[in-house]
């Protein structure tokens, strides 16, 4: 009888997070030696909201002279800071963790404005992880004797840190928390497209009463980052970003005594076996490549699906992708936000065009793109082989390449057939297969029946050209100790 023909539509009304919780100043200086100062040459640059292209603020653009000033300030602060009892350094870090928790709503909105990622992610992922990271490393500061690096391990000195735009505040936390816990002082350069949360962090340092010069923030471009890395009085270089820049840094520190950790690119394989928990695998694939618009170094950007379930899985995946909500990042119901910059959008666009030109089949989720800002609809490519550019190069965007395999051996061989080795995923209900495959994957993080999970206690970092050193956990201390 009457199966109702009229289909109901449950449209979610806009549910924007309030922008008024964050007060962005029209301009910001460099944070050196506890003070905000202009760049030596007076240069400034603008930071825009990627979802609207609205100018958010104007910030100072650091040059070589400013780098030198900041390194000097960090050097000056190093003596007292490293001589503090660990228990005192710990308390500063605990203070920072707590202030971040208190101000997390403000910081989440700020991060969403400056980065373009959905408020759902900054609120539920970035900010909780930022606070947790400081809280975790705070506890290490007075326990370094017990960390497995011998008695009384010493800090390195001044750490020069350069971070990317995809998780601005979280990458700052990954860099600054272990550096300070171990007694180093810091000069940090955030990415030019996302300088604001690092500048707000400077204010958190002020509220926490952190001694001046312990943390210095230099906003600027790649030239400032290079000057920082190459500065002769920097003892430690920590970089997260592209493999190309990572290699340049590795060359530039050659022959010095600088200790280096690099977290670079990836082309993670997400392997789905025919006995996978399919519904959870679909969720894992989605979060693997569409979390943060796919602008994640450990993204599961290569889906390796067992050929026997490929069609079924792709149907499920496409159906699921059709429910993703793309739009205003401040709307609490937005799943997919804006691409971080026009440059990144151009890169994603170019690589997807290459994918089509090379014969891969493109499918794009049905969604309307806003007229202003930088947007890219969730996209997947089928009929992709190992030889395709989109199966090898990191796209760093919401684009999934789908490849198939027949046997576990073939899955492992294809997964490992990459210059990178950062992350991988395994989906199967068979426990022994999980362990066997995990054992054979050449990747620093393997998620089995889950994906894109992070925790301050869990070491993170890559094999091969995905970099070296680990961040997080006890392992994350090593990069900041003279051991």
């Amino acid at each position, binding site marked *: 009888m009457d199966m109702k023909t009229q289909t109901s*539509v449950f449209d979610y*009304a806009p549910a924007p997070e309030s922008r008024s919780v964050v007060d962005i100043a029209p301009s910001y200086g460099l944070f050196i030696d506890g003070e905000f100062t202009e760049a030596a040459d007076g240069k400034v640059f603008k930071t825009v909201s990627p979802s609207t292209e609205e100018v958010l603020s104007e910030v100072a653009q650091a040059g070589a002279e400013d780098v030198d000033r900041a390194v000097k300030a960090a050097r000056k602060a190093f003596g007292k800071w490293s001589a503090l009892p660990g228990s005192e350094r710990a308390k500063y870090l605990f203070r920072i963790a707590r202030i971040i928790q208190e101000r997390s709503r403000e910081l989440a909105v700020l991060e969403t404005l400056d980065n373009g990622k959905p408020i759902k992610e900054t609120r539920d992922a970035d900010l909780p992880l930022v606070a947790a990271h400081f809280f975790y490393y705070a506890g290490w500061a007075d326990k370094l004797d017990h960390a497995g690096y011998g008695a009384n391990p010493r800090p390195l000195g001044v750490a020069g840190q350069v971070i990317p735009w995809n998780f601005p505040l979280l990458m700052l936390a990954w860099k600054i928390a272990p550096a300070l816990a171990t007694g180093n002082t810091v000069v940090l350069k955030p990415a030019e497209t996302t300088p604001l949360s690092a500048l707000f962090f400077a204010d958190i340092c002020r509220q926490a009463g952190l001694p001046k010069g312990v943390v210095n923030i230099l906003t600027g471009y790649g030239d400032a980052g290079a000057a920082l890395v190459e500065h002769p009085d920097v003892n430690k270089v920590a970089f997260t970003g592209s493999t190309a820049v990572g290699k340049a840094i590795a060359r530039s520190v050659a022959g010095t005594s600088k200790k280096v950790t690099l977290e670079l690119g990836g082309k993670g394989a997400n392997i789905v076996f025919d006995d996978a*928990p*399919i519904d959870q695998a679909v969720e894992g694939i989605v979060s693997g490549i569409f979390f943060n618009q796919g602008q994640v170094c450990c993204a599961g950007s290569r889906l390796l699906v067992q050929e026997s379930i490929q069609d079924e899985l792709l149907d499920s995946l496409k159906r699921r992708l059709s429910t993703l909500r793309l739009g205003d990042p401040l709307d609490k119901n937005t799943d997919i936000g804006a691409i971080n910059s026009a440059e990144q959008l151009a890169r994603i666009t170019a690589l997807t065009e290459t994918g089509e030109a090379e014969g891969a089949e493109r499918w794009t989720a049905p969604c309307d793109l806003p007229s202003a800002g930088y947007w890219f609809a969730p996209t997947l490519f089928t009929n992709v082989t190992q030889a395709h550019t989109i199966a090898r190069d990191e796209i760093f965007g919401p684009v999934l390449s789908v490849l198939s395999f027949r046997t576990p051996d073939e899955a492992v061989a294809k997964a490992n057939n990459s210059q990178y080795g950062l992350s991988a995923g395994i989906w199967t209900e068979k426990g022994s297969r999980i362990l066997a495959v995990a054992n054979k994957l050449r990747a620093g993080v393997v998620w089995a029946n889950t994906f894109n999970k992070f925790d301050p206690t869990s070491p993170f970092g890559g094999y091969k050209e995905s970099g070296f050193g680990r961040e997080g956990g006890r392992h994350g201390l090593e990069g900041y100790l003279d051991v």
Partner: protein
Amino acid sequence: MPTNAPAAAFADATASDGALRRFLHGLPGIDPVGLEARAASLGTRSIKTSAKAYAIDLAISMIDLTTLEGADTPGKVRALAAKAVHPDPTDRTTPHTAAVCVYPDMVATAKEVLKGSDVKVASVATAFPAGRAALPVKLADVRDAVAAGADEIDMVIDRGAFLAGHYLKVYEEIAAVRAECGDKARLKVIFETGELSTYDNIRRASWLGMMGGADFIKTSTGKVAVNATPPNTLVLLEAVRDFRAQTGIQVGVKPAGGIRSTKDAVKFLVLVNETVGGDWLDNHWFRFGASSLLNDLLMQRQKLATGRYSGPDYVTVD
């Protein structure tokens, strides 16, 4: 009355206990953490203003307003039925509920009050809630309820048989009840998900119910510790989605027990919307088995209409 007749499609799978076991155990597994994370993530959807108003009215229209107490009397059932027709006496624009849900001996009473309205009468049966009786007794229970005018039968499966692995027995019982309902009543099959315990079992039971001819699959009786939850309802929704994809037959879903607030109800509607979509956003295909939920929905409805928070004295106690 649409009668699900999937039996032919699953003739091989239901040929023997062994075949049925192989079929059910061949369904994709469920990772509990991933399932619960997905349900929780959908629970963070922010449903405001016009969307909330839509959801509240939809939820009211989907309620099987329920009383299943040993102390039920004709008076209690009449009051409940009256409320089902006019949930908010101060606002006649309020939709009526989908049904009232009572024990078989109260069906006639409810039917009488509901005469002339679109509100259906649902009756639990098959030795509800434990399901511990011989099949002829259960079928007699169903026959009584249908004869008294029940539009819908909410049967419980034999969880003991299910957990002992006697899937064919469970299947045949569902099919027998389905036959007993004939074309007079739609059949809801209750799994008592809290007793099946694992999500894998809930998925298997969902398929078993649908293969046996369920018009609706329903989480629970409301009589055990864990009743409807977002994750176990999500399993049911995935099952009806996949069943339709495979057979073309659409089956309804009814979470029951433990859903008390508007906030909860809206979360379930979001689950429906994002798992199976608009085809199920209708009381022909989705129901809430609830009693106290209705008053909270009414208070929230009044709040949206007036801008003031309402209170328990402004909705009826029945």
